[in-house]
């Protein structure tokens, strides 16, 4: 079952990399939150109940509900629905995403370790590469925040892989959500006008 969820997660990553509408991003981030919630429940069998409840509820509440809700609000308030025209065309991004997937497979094969499943390693690396691609190839800061959220999910998946032995590592990784909160609130503070979404006031 976990493997199905992981494969579904990979599909959402490919979809994110080629999507051109912010609403799709927001929806997919919510879906990823729920998939991570499912993976958490199925994977963390050895963790004590209190810790499991904290991790699972944080995942479903913050990643699955709060973040997508705030993203939808930002999209509605800014009125910016499509990614910037200077963003790389979807076709090229798709090719780069597939290269990232192959690279993740090769790397995780080379990094075989008794303490981690290869599936987790592969999907975490793929998630990391996809997040970086989004940050590098898109111009609007909202796309870049989505890129960071994807990287944060990579951290979460990787920490789940050792979660049964070191649940502390998941709890620490969750601290990254503070930054997500700060960044999203920062976007509200930026007055959410389309031109402010490029942040080009400060130059040499």
């Amino acid at each position, binding site marked *: 079952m976990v493997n199905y969820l992981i494969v579904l997660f990979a599909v959402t990553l490919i979809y994110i990399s080629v999507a051109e509408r912010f609403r799709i991003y927001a929806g997919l981030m919510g879906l990823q939150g729920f998939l991570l919630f499912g993976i958490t429940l199925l994977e963390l069998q050895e963790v004590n109940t209190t810790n499991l409840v904290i991790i699972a509820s944080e995942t479903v509440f913050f990643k699955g509900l709060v973040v997508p809700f705030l993203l939808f609000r930002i999209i509605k308030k800014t009125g910016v629905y499509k990614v910037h025209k200077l963003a790389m065309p979807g076709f090229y991004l798709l090719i780069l995403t597939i290269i990232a997937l192959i690279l993740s497979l090769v*790397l995780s094969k*080379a*990094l075989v*370790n*008794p*303490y*981690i499943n290869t599936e987790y390693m592969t999907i*975490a690396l793929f998630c*990391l590469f996809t997040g970086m691609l989004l*940050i590098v190839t898109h111009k609007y*800061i909202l796309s*870049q*925040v989505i*890129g*960071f959220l994807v*990287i*944060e999910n*990579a*951290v979460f998946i*990787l*920490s789940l*892989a*050792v979660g049964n*032995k*070191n*649940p*502390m*590592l998941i709890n*620490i*990784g969750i*601290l*990254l959500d*503070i*930054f*997500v909160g*700060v*960044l999203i609130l*920062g*976007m509200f*503070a*930026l007055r959410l006008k389309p031109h*402010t979404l490029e*942040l080009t*006031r*400060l130059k*040499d």
Partner: protein
Amino acid sequence: MAILVFILKNRTITKNIIISYILLHIVFTAYCWINLNSTELVYFTFDSAGVLMLAVLSLLLIPTVYHGFVYTKTDKTRNFNIYHTALIALVTSMTGAYLANGMTVLWIFVEATTLSVAALVYHDRTEKALEATWKYVFICSVGIAIAYIGILLLSFIYGRGDAPILSFSSFLNLASIANPLYLKIAFVFVVVGFSTKMGLFPMHTVTTDAHSVAPPPISALISTTLMNVGFLAIFRVYTLFSSTVILPFMNNVLILSGILSLLVAAGYMLKAKHMKRMLAYSSLENMGLVAIALGIGGIGYYAAFLLIILHSLTKASLFFHMGQFFRVLHTFRLDDCGKYMKLHPAGGLIMLTGLFGILAIPPSGLFISELMIFKGLVFNNQWFLLIVTALLLCCIIYALSTRVMHIVFSDPRDIELQEPGIIKPAETISQFVLLGLVFFMCFYQPPFLVEMINRSIVALP
């Protein structure tokens, strides 16, 4: 103390709390120095490298608070208190990061520094400040997430549930039996991640915008003690893996990152039009040199520590001075600056001595450290690297010296100067003292400093 400052809406009480905090910090540093290598509260160890950086922080804390008082003199009490709450949080986080004896604890404190710096960069509440703060938090968040992936990869070589803090001492034996590919990837992630704090290429952009708008005393901390946090994080992982087969790989990564940092710094400094951005790129240059020094090994290790300590003192004095600079010239735009020596002679002298100090021109103490780096390059027969480094340094010397000379002696290019503000001579004392220390160390390095640096690098090959 930070909570007290935030809750109590009284400037005098805040000032008293901050002064008490400085004293407490100095006493704590002395305690750490006396109890070297002891462990407290499980998660903190007073090792030489950490205590050395802590001492630099304690030394810079006094002028930072003093110049902070001057900078926030006209602020509303609320902003004044938020500034000092965030300052206490930042200093405490940096202290924790210096003394942390495990990867995860170190990471948590590094994360905490980002949040406190964000509050400080946003101090002026302008649109530019907001943009700079957002960029700072964003790039740092990405960097910290990448660093955490590096730490998680390290946890896989650890693979046991009995040490969730991933202490440095527990890695010593495991690193040598781990898959080298793991170590290489983990090292790259850690370097890229923590370079947001050290200000190294490829995450060097993180602080440049923040410097443009941050209060000068905060720029001084971001460019010195906070960069030291990043350096220490990378240095600790480097030390852990230095006994493994990946040492040459780590050296190459550091040298490449160092050279690219120098290249970027030289390129931007040649076209920079903002004084504080200029100083930010100078920090990038110096961190590049530190990375090269670590990468060449041998004498370079000592040079890296000496350089990072002296850079902290020199750059802090220059950034402290930027507060007075702005009050005299009312701008940081290089084209609009000029006649500084005439308008503020003490400030002009600081700019000139600071220029000598930061460019490592004798009798600057930085000259000794850079000489050691070049010696190391000659010993290692790395002639190509030596030539490239020397050429890039020439560009940087040209860029910085022409601009500072223009500010100090020439007329402004575009506009008439406004009426200069009044500066108390006492405000320049801290800068003269710090620069005096830097010049003094060209002739004499105190034995306690030499011993501490040597102890810090004793585990390296």
